[in-house]
């Protein structure tokens, strides 16, 4: 068993099974398995998953539909976004 997404504990087998079920884009895999949606923001796993997807679908990585990088780049406590009412 190989863990691909460390934040959400998702294995290689689970990802392959999901692709076989028809979740054939990064966006769908993110929503189905939560891969790449944890504190590391997909830094560790999304590149690996792209490779797996490309191989399974017989495409190049450039041919795959991209997923949007969501801010913030690293988790931040909400209070640092400020509150104009606070002294």
């Amino acid at each position, binding site marked *: 068993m190989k863990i691909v997404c460390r934040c959400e504990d998702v294995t290689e087998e689970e990802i392959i099974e999901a692709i076989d079920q028809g979740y054939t*884009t990064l*966006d*769908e895999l993110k*929503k*189905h398995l*939560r891969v790449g*949606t*944890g*504190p590391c*923001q997909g830094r560790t796993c999304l590149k690996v998953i792209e490779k797996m997807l490309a191989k399974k679908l017989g495409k190049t990585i450039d041919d795959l539909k991209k997923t*949007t990088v*969501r*801010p*913030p780049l690293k*988790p*931040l*406590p*909400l*209070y640092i*976004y*400020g*509150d*104009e*009412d*606070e002294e």
Partner: protein
Amino acid sequence: MRNKAEVVIIGGGITGCGVAYNLAKMGLTDVVLVEKNFLSSGATGRCGGGIRQQFTTEWNIKLAMESVKRFEKMNDELDIDIEYEQGGYLVITDDEKELEEFKKNVKLQNKLGLDSKLITPSEAKEIVPYLNEDNILGATFCQSDGHAYPFRVVQGYAKKAKEMGVEINKFTEVKSIKKEDNKIKSVVTDRGEIKTNIVVNAAGAYSREIAGMIGVEMPNKPFRHEILATERYKHILDPMIISFKYGIYFSQQKHGEIVGGIGDPDEPSSYNIKSSLKFVERFTSVLGKIVPAFKNLNIVRQWAGFYDVTPDAKPILGYTEGIDTLIQANGYSGHGFMVAPRVTELIAELIVDGKTSMPIDELNLKRFEGETVGEVYVVG
């Protein structure tokens, strides 16, 4: 892809997939659904997943209550875990006038059989220990309100519809709709043409573009609404907390993340879907007054989606005058997911039986030619 079908559904969100499922369940499986991106890629997959029955109009309350009955049975019916939780909705206010409105609304809701009630700030604090009760005057609470994972509901509907014989085509974009003498002839996509008589316009914020392809003008306007998620935390919040006055809503999902948003009255209508810093600042500022400790939570992600807004904040459902076989199922104005189980059943009834088990006449597109009474409970 099939080149003909009795019904073509445009849009693979909660509405399109729900209609596909309900049509198939009623025995009509000669149906093709087309979606330009992946299923739930639009508003459905971007929304907060809230399921509320506390509305102000009789029709919306009934519709939401009927939908909750279906959500409660959905795991078994769709054979999928929709991550449904009934932690309630806590509607708070710091405004005396709004509190008076609450009393009136709860009366109507109770009359229709909803378990909503008016509660005091200290009663609200019992439900949410982190609440700053000094900043509220009162609240309403409905235990059977809740939330689910919209992506999963869509997958469930689509999977069951497919099993019954419906064809679902994702990454298939509608380019034009052909008609002859005000009758629909075919839907042309980037993957081929589908001959059909009946088209269901379930394209959400893009519904007006779809209708425009055959010369039907619609009043729907897209508005960006932003939303954010925190990291996962242990269980700290049961209900969805909302304030209509401040436009804020937030709840804790089954996996532990707090998901919430806040509307911006200054947001212009557009297809801008970018995330902004201003949104997180506004959200945090209001959140801090309601549950001060939550300002210590870590935000992990923010995104945006479109509310498909009509002039009276009620959906547009049913036949289209002039082109009868264009069925409208759009314009939900920010509360489409929560009423979809019942609405999509009604749309399927309209197509299969020519009539519905709950009246939808007053939601017809042509109402905008006259006066209409709006839904005021819109949040986010």
